[in-house]
């Protein structure tokens, strides 16, 4: 009878040896100082970590929040520390901090030797340098057990896909959602401070699940309070109270949420997309107030959520559909998906405020509609029907190439590419939102509103060129940060983004 147990013991030992233990890494030092990069030497110097972020003069801080496999925080102290770091930065007179919260993906965690931790640290240094050292930069790294199998077992690691996808789906809950709300609200104690959430890979899935409900609820609350205030006599205490409540709701969400190479199915994004479409929401944070449209204020539509994916990302383009193929059969067998046509009534509602008739529906395959199962089999930014923008790259003196389709567009004025000038592009009716140059090659890129798009909401989705992000994991690069800063942290007129009027209209 002992023989089976004797056989089982080595297998159990082997499995234990493969696994990354469930453990926190940062309880003793939940916030560390990051040295700014050297001004004279190379742009980035090796980071000296380990020093606690306690001095008010520390311009770059990195705090950690660690969450276990069941969605519970390892210790309340980490969140308290992160919130106190933000408050301290807000108290610094004249400083408007930028608070970046990052959720890592599969095969990563918060361990000191983790490549995402190192990458996020140098990214914070780079962002601080790009802001010319004028704004404190606070990073909050949300660590979870993305890495189940040790890297010394690379093949076995691949088979943890379903397990870690389930964890990323399970973890979001009251603990994480409330922490993110507190981070945003604490950041906005300073009205000019910016709260940015970033999720990568399964971290994108995790973040989307954590914020979607709360964000939709906050937007709805703020809208209702503003409508109530507008219906009351102007300047009355009741109206003022409603506006305070609306502001509190707006302050409780991030100014921008970025998903990069998100590995969640598009079904995760669809409810938020529908919510924004059905309520015709637009986001114009640079406009001083609702009546300022005629006074020449900037009324450009900006994103509240951005979902980006590289065309060179094999993981989300190929591995996700393969991974979802088996569960798809189960869903199909259970009849869980709605189909196009009269049987399923599955239509896609579209909204583009720049069209003469901003609302319409896609009903048939010919229109571009796809069945519900397609949303499960693809990630949102890889779906053409959901893409709001296109990335164009200069591939010649008069030619721009579309990243997602490979098509080329002829530009008639060569100065447009030579100067990388948005206005010159737009003189050719291209609807370019912004332009940027890569830091090293100086190649010109442009972000264009997708022609005939269904998605004109503040939930931007697009595929990006592999010259900017080459694959699934390489995201801590100057090229990618340059793109983010020039596209999302700068006004269309080229001035740094300020938080003027963060509510949706």
């Amino acid at each position, binding site marked *: 009878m002992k023989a089976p147990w004797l056989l089982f013991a080595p297998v159990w030992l082997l499995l234990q040896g493969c696994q990354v233990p469930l453990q926190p890494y940062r309880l003793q030092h939940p916030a560390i100082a990051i040295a700014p990069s050297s001004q004279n030497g190379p742009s980035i110097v090796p980071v000296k970590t380990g020093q606690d972020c306690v001095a008010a003069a520390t311009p770059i801080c990195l705090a950690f929040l660690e969450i276990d496999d069941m969605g519970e925080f390892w210790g309340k102290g980490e969140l308290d520390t992160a919130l106190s770091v933000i408050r301290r930065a807000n108290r610094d007179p004249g400083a408007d901090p930028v608070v970046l919260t990052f959720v890592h993906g599969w095969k990563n965690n918060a361990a000191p030797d983790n490549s995402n931790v190192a990458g996020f640290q140098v990214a914070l240094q780079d962002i601080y340098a790009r802001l010319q050292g004028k704004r404190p930069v606070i990073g909050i790294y949300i660590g979870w057990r993305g890495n189940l199998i040790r890297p010394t077992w690379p093949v076995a690691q691949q088979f943890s896909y379903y397990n870690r996808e389930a964890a990323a789906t399970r973890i979001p809950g009251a603990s994480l959602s409330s922490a993110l709300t507190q981070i945003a609200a604490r950041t906005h104690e300073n009205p000019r401070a910016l709260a940015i959430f970033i999720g990568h890979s399964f971290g994108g899935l995790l973040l989307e699940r954590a914020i979607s409900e709360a964000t939709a609820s906050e937007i709805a609350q703020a809208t209702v309070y503003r409508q109530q205030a507008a219906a009351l006599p102007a300047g009355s205490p009741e109206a003022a109270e409603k506006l305070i409540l609306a502001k509190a709701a707006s302050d409780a969400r991030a100014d921008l949420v970025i998903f990069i190479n998100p590995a969640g199915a598009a079904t995760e994004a669809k409810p938020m997309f529908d919510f924004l479409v059905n309520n015709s929401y637009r986001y114009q944070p640079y406009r001083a107030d609702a009546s300022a449209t005629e006074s020449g204020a900037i009324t450009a539509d900006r994103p509240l959520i951005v979902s980006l994916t590289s065309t060179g990302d094999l993981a989300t383009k190929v591995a996700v559909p393969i991974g979802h193929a088996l569960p798809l059969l189960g869903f199909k067998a259970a009849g869980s998906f709605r189909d196009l046509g009269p049987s399923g009534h599955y239509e896609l509602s579209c909204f583009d405020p720049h069209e003469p008739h901003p609302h319409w529906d896609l009903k048939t395959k010919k229109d571009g509609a796809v069945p519900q199962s397609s949303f499960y089999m693809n990630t949102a930014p890889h779906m053409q029907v959901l893409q709001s923008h296109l990335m164009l790259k200069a591939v010649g003196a008069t030619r721009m190439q579309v990243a997602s389709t490979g098509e080329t567009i002829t530009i008639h004025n060569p100065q447009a590419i030579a100067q990388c000038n948005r206005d010159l592009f737009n003189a050719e009716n291209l609807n370019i939102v912004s332009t940027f*140059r890569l830091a090293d090659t100086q190649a010109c890129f442009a972000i264009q509103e997708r022609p005939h798009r269904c998605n004109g909401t503040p939930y931007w989705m697009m595929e990006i060129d592999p010259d900017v992000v080459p694959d699934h994991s390489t995201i801590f690069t100057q090229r990618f940060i340059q793109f983010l800063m020039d596209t999302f942290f700068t006004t269309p007129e080229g001035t740094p983004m300020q938080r003027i009027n963060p509510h949706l209209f």
Partner: protein
Amino acid sequence: MRVLRRLVLLALLGAAAACAPAQAIPISISETVLVCPGAFPTDLTQTDCRYTPRQRTLDFLTGFVTDQAGLGAVVYGLGAQIIQSPPEWKRTWYGYGQRVGVRYTQAVGKGTAQYISGFLLNDDPRFLAYRDDPGVILRRQQAVKDLPAGSRALDQMTHDGWRRFGHAWFDVVTVRRSTGSGDGRRIPAISRFAGEFAGAYAGYPWYPARENSFANAGQRAAGAFGTAVLSSFWTEYHVEVTNILGALFHRNQATPAAGANP
């Protein structure tokens, strides 16, 4: 006073420039570009390009003791089992064991020879795509700077398919000396060739006597060399391959253009 006037003028010009709508984005040319072999340009985590002894040892162990090494032997062994190579080994479990064993031994032999010779030569065997090569990035910078008058240079760079193909081959047969800046001198890929031949000869004790000729060992080395060629071509063409594979999974997706706003 003149200095003051100039300062005021400069301040006014600066303010006007800041308020101007959507200006041209100036070009900033840098003389040096750092790209580490195996990495992506401007990767912030790559500050030291050296192929360190630790990294070399880790890569060696990956092909030696991890499940990846075992899986390689099992899969290639299965291929050999299907075509019954060598024919002296029957299509039995014992024959399959022989095929897996010889492949694992070859992998260990290859890795050991590559590790030792690479260590002695201080080379860096990691591949780099043509478009990420520092020389190509500097050429691209210059081509952009010359726009719009010198438009031919940038146009030509989009038709450099043969250069890419050649670069992929060149990366297979040469390696760089390992340096902090990643621009080490190119030398023949001695460690790679040594590894392939050592792997081929490591099978001697396993293979039937008929297989142990120089010609057969050379054939095995050439076959193993194919994996290095594939790696280099994957580095060069992974975006195109990903697009082709992606198209297979994303077919039947109509563009919304058809159902555009009426």
